[in-house]
């Protein structure tokens, strides 16, 4: 059976109360869900024997700048059994800028989530080691947010002190 039909069917069977939004664009299937359920859905997708999305390819976020739910956290996963790629999306609002971490499902999500935290300032609950990935720990801004200027902010990265 085609995974494009199987994934929505399985998800709706397993989580009848949740509302999913399925979009098929240019051959990529993406599923939108509420952020509260991200961990259980990811665990189901990984452990369900007919799906087996064992490889978490990527975790990232999009900043929509002026929208009500300002951020969308995006997960990419790959099923080695079926050679199928799936995308999950969950909206995160700026006022409550956090989402549950999926490191308990895939260990590799660790650095991806650190990078997302570093670049967008989205906090991942229950993350084992949420530090900045690329920027120095003292850096106060989140560079990939749309309100951060391309030129950077003068003085935000202090030069090394002279002795």
């Amino acid at each position, binding site marked *: 059976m085609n995974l494009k039909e199987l994934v929505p069917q399985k998800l709706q069977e397993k989580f009848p109360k949740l509302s999913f939004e399925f979009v098929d664009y240019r051959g990529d299937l993406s599923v939108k869900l509420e952020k509260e359920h991200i961990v259980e859905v990811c665990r189901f997708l990984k452990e369900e024997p007919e799906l087996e999305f064992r490889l978490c390819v*990527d975790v990232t976020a999009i*900043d929509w700048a002026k929208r009500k739910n300002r951020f969308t956290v995006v997960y990419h996963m790959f099923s080695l059994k079926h050679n199928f790629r799936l995308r999950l999306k969950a909206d995160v609002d700026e006022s409550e800028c956090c989402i549950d971490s999926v490191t308990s499902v895939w260990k590799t999500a660790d650095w991806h989530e650190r990078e997302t935290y570093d670049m967008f300032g989205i906090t991942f609950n229950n993350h084992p080691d949420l530090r900045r990935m690329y920027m120095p720990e003292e850096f106060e801004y989140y560079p990939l947010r749309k309100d951060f200027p391309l030129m950077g902010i003068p003085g935000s990265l202090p030069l090394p002190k002279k002795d």
Partner: protein
Amino acid sequence: MPKLTKDEVHPKIIEALLGTDSDISVDDALENEMVLNMGPQHPATHGVLRVLLRLDGETVVASIPELGYLHRGYEKMAENMSYYEFIPHTDRLDYLSPMANNVAWVLAVEKLAGIEAPPRAQYIRMMIAELARIASHLVAIGSLAMDVGALTVFLWTLREREKILDIWDILCGARFTNSYTRIGGVANDAQPEALAKAKWFIDQFDENLDECERLINTNRIFIERLEGAGVISGNDAIEMGMTGPSLRGSGVAYDLRRNSPYLCYNDMDFNVVTYSEGDSLARYFVRADEARESAKIVRQVLDKMPQGEVLLNQPKKVLPHKTEIYTKMEELIYDFMIVNFGINPPEGDIYHAIEGSKGELGFYLVSKGEGHPWRCKIRSPSMVNLQSLPHLIKGRMVSDVVAIIGSIDPIMGEADK
């Protein structure tokens, strides 16, 4: 080496490194446990990778890789330039196989815009992507051998790589930062000289690679340094998100050229090389065998390469040839529009990945119908592969750390973006 003081290491890093089960500190190390700072300017870390090691004697108890010393913010830059303008920047990601990055980027943009390059351009792209893989693996093999003390191999593999750079010189005029591909095709048709040189290269390549391999495959020091060092099982490797030769060295046949084929890889006959040991030596063998398989693909590509256009004739999305711009009004207008406003793909988001030389190199692009991407995420294999480093070096000696980093083959330009 001057002693590391607490002021130089952020408390959060120390906390992550030491965990809760230890009471040692940086300033006042206990008798046999200490914290060693390796990098970011260490020749064996292949760039600016910094690893903090917590050692018991010479054994690694825990480690924290620190990235970001080469972070240039390419994702932010991509959001502020058009799809065409970003092509030269992809050269600077994995700077050992710039051609493969060019191919990955244009394939992602083409998927977003809903266009497809003509067959000849696709074959040329396959050829350059495979040659880039060979070049990158040659450097990986050479520098791994150099890391464990065999210097001659490095010179010999770089000599081979030099020949590939010569092909690129003929092909696009640049040896290192190529920017050869274009949205909807490639910059110019492959010259007969370039194709002849590629043919000549792969005809002599197998023999020369054998020669390089003979130097180290029976070298006891080389084998013993790598065998059993940095072992990771297939399941763990998937769990840690490893891709590319590092994953295939653990016995998982995951290769995007087979698992989700792009370009014309479906028509090509090649094997996905896997080794089941999962140690550094297996990762080295995978690279060597994969270089041979790539040469096989290049040979088939050269045999089957069709004639025809190398750039799509669709002026709304693809920059037309200069000759047409100067002679036709319509093309002149579109050229003006593309240069000033970009190609404006329809609203939507796509993810496209190719099998780069280090693993899955993917681009996640979000378009809002403008000339600039709204969001561009680079899924870089080097960064994800490095994540498993603490797992690989745990319980090994400091000298093994060098060999294991070499066997994962991280490129910091790509890992730090």
